[in-house]
């Protein structure tokens, strides 16, 4: 029988912080404009330039550390990581090798089975991004717009044991940084980048196996695929009596497998030492307080509230996928939407479908949240039925019409005036003596017919339940005159 192996996985995540300016220079951190236009002298390492720590990046890092329940350093220190590379302008990267801003945190993940697990985070540290390179056949281009963009590197403990766990962990981190508004968290755009370290060991062994690092995981789904592939590959090697060799591999998206990039034997010595141009910065407790107390609500808090609102797991998770959706949802509840499930249905089914079809986002909607709440109130109060409500919504989406106007325009408002319904009922009963008789002799289908006649006479506007009530009051119980 084949040996059973236990995989062990650690994940390093580089989160690009969406601050206004770069980590150590005043150039914008957006890096989308024309090449090399978003740079300051420091970004190209002109001689004599000096780093100035970006306060906003520090505040962002503090928020993430707090969300991950980490110990936050009270004194910030930075170090140099020295190596030569064309995309590294200074010949060193400023990072926090010896004293990271955050230490020892954790995050909870929920597996597909419903099981909950806590993943421990070793540390989080601030550093800076490199330039972008473009290599053509005979020429290379360098774009320094990205050089110096702030990064927060979050390092997990080797706490995960499957591709699913690794994926869920990255998802949880992505959720936190996007909800905090500190990063776009888009793996496909590189605003969040993951490296995984994967090793396997025979079950029961107290020693970890040789690890391989896997890079180039451009989607959350790829993390699971890469880890699962790598676990199988290593198991096959060990089963054949071959050793796992420590190396860096990358995920080949086409083949859905990991391929060797380079052996780890000649690891670079980064010659770390303290950055002498940044004196230690004592974090002011007011600054810490402000950073923590200006944090956005975290997904875990929303999750709890939404379940309390009566949404099921599927509804909660689909709503949490985008922070904008849950903010919209929350706002509508605050504005007086009474039924969260109906609100979810209108927002996540109808409105989202329309937005997707028209390639628009919530901010493009031509009506206000107040108008959606008004529509839901009309429905809730029985002024219109749900079929009509969806019809109104469609008008609102297409034309930006107000719900009250549409209801009036289309004559949808139900007749709920008691005397009007009395008159309608009197008229129908007078014209349908035979049906009344049938009812009284025990033919129960006659009631439905009579209600239908009231609706027909009122062109569908009569409140059907009121009509039914009044008919019953007039004609008595079914079979009351049965022989």
């Amino acid at each position: 029988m084949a040996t059973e192996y236990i995989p062990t996985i650690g994940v390093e995540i580089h989160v690009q912080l969406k601050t206004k300016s770069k980590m150590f220079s005043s150039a914008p951190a957006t890096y989308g404009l024309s090449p090399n236009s978003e740079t300051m002298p420091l970004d190209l390492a002109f001689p004599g330039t000096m780093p100035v720590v970006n306060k906003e990046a520090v505040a962002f890092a503090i928020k993430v550390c707090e969300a991950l329940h980490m110990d936050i350093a009270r004194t910030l220190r930075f170090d140099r990581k020295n190596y030569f590379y064309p995309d590294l302008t200074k010949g060193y990267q400023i990072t926090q090798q010896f004293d990271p801003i955050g230490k020892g945190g954790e995050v909870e993940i929920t597996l597909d089975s419903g099981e909950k697990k806590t993943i421990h985070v070793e540390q989080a540290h601030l550093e800076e991004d490199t330039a972008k390179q473009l290599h053509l056949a005979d020429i290379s281009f360098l774009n320094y717009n990205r050089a110096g963009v702030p990064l927060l590197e979050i390092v997990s403990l080797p706490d995960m044991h499957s591709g699913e766990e690794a994926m869920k962990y990255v998802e949880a981190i992505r959720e936190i940084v996007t909800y905090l508004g500190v990063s776009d968290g888009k793996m496909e755009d590189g605003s969040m980048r993951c490296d995984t370290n994967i090793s396997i060991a025979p079950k029961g062994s107290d020693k970890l196996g040789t690890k391989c690092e896997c890079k180039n995981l451009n989607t959350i789904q790829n993390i699971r695929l890469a880890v699962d592939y790598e676990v199988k590959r290593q198991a096959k090697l060990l089963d054949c009596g071959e050793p796992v060799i420590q190396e860096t591999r990358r995920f080949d998206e086409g083949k859905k497998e990991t391929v060797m990039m380079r052996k780890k034997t000649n690891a670079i010595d980064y010659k770390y030492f303290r950055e002498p141009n940044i004196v230690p910065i004592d974090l002011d407790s007011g600054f810490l307080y402000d950073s923590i107390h200006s944090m956005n609500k975290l997904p875990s808090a929303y999750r709890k509230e939404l379940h309390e609102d009566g949404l099921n797991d599927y509804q909660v998770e689909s709503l949490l996928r985008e922070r904008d959706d849950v903010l919209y949802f929350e706002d509508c509840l605050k504005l007086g939407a009474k039924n969260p499930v109906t609100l979810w249905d209108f927002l996540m089914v109808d409105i989202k479908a329309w937005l997707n079809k028209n390639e628009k986002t919530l901010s493009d909607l031509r009506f206000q949240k107040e108008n959606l709440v008004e529509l839901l109130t009309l429905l809730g109060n029985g002024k219109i039925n749900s079929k009509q409500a969806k019809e109104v919504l469609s008008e609102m989406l297409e034309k930006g019409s107000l719900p009250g106007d549409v209801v009036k325009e289309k004559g949808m408002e139900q007749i709920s005036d008691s005397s009007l319904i009395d008159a309608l009922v009197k008229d129908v009963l007078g014209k349908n003596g035979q049906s009344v008789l049938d009812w009284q002799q025990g033919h129960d289908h006659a009631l439905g017919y009579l209600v239908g006649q009231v609706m027909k006479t009122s062109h569908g506007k009569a409140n059907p339940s009121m009509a039914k009530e009044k008919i019953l009051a007039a004609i008595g119980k079914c079979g009351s005159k049965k022989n």
Partner: protein
Amino acid sequence: MTKWMNKSIAELHAALVKKEVTSLELVEDAISGVQGDTCNSFEALCFEEARKEAGKITEVKEEEYLKGIPYVAKDNFSTAGIETTASSKILEGYVPFFDATVVSKLRRAGMILIGKSTMDELAMGGTGTTGHKGNTLNPYNPERIIGGSSCGSAAAVSQGIVPMALGSDTGDSVRKPASNAGLVGFKATWGRISRYGLFPFAPSLDAVGYFTRNVLDSAYVLSAIAGHDKNDMSSSSRKNEKYQNYVLQKKTLKKVGYFKAVMDSISNPRIKKAYLEVLDGLKKKGYEVLSYDYPVELLDALYPTYMIISCAESTSNNANLDGIKFGPAAKNSPRTWQEYMTEARTAGFTDLIKRRFVIGSFSLLSENQEEMFCRAQKARRLIVNELNKFFDQIDYLIVPAAYSIPKKISELSTKWSTKPDFLDNILTIGNFGGNPSLTLPLLFEEGMPIGLNITGRPFEDGYVFSLASAVEEITGLKGLVKEEK
């Protein structure tokens, strides 16, 4: 034509205020001085810009102390539009597009830059002979070194070409050449003057410094260039002061100390005599003079500690010089980026620089870091702790800045001494502690000037000036100019 540039800033200022001379005339006088330079003092020059700036000055007010007066900057200060090479091939043709903070502060104070001065390559050297333009000579004796690394600035002020020149001081790069050239050389407290735009050698030790020919001028210059700079996080936010007032109002502290080990090691009797005479003169002026037992093993540690820390930092600081962004590009069609950088750096640095980089890298390698770099950091801590103990009891440290006359250029060796004399490295102590430190002339020996050095507590730059001014009165050596006769 009257010679102006051999005068002090104070005299020039008075003449400008009284309209006895115009700024343009001063600039022309400085330019003719540059043209008569016999010491190889200059890199790129900017006469036209200087003339233009000077031409705009029609009036100088009493409080505009530096306005209209020419100066020179060491070639490791970034100057917009003026080639800045740090006297290294690796930066030939590099024209910065921004000014160092000190350069823009001096411009706003009205000082006029007339050019850049030679230096030891990338400020790494103490002889003034390692720059890409060859040897910079000592005006007092061209066979002898002027010292470095701020050699050209020292030579320019000493020859009476300008009354002030910017330098930088990582070990003693202003204060040693000041001693060799009969000048006042001042290095401010670390963090007192912005280093933004100063090409870094070893940032934890680097300080902006400058040369003048008297102490009062030196104090006035600090008032103009000190202060916090948002571009330099290590610059102090302490309030700027009017440092000249320490001299003018004789605001001073009372306890002057010397290291016993240093006193005992001075072998030249004339230097020792002059040193003792100054100490004696200070006693007469009411100062208390104290001997202090600074541990000799820490003095012996100065040189290796300095070499390890400065080389380690320099190898990292100069890693930006890869020929990609600025400086001469690789020419021999390299095929890979590794070949490109290797070629640019091989051609750009001299062997002396490469040796420092190798030592720096070696001491930072993970297998050596604990034994070399970390040990040097610990030694630095001990050196500074002991210096702090000294300053707990005593206000000033006073030592000779040199213990013999400068070496002959022909006798220089690039071999590194295996048993260095701590006297040759005593001034580095002020860089380790970030202290304000000033050298001024003490005596002449065989026709060569030798300086005295005063070091104070961090941010007591003003008190250093006041003691220096008292010493200046005792020696009577001020306003020294070595002009071609």
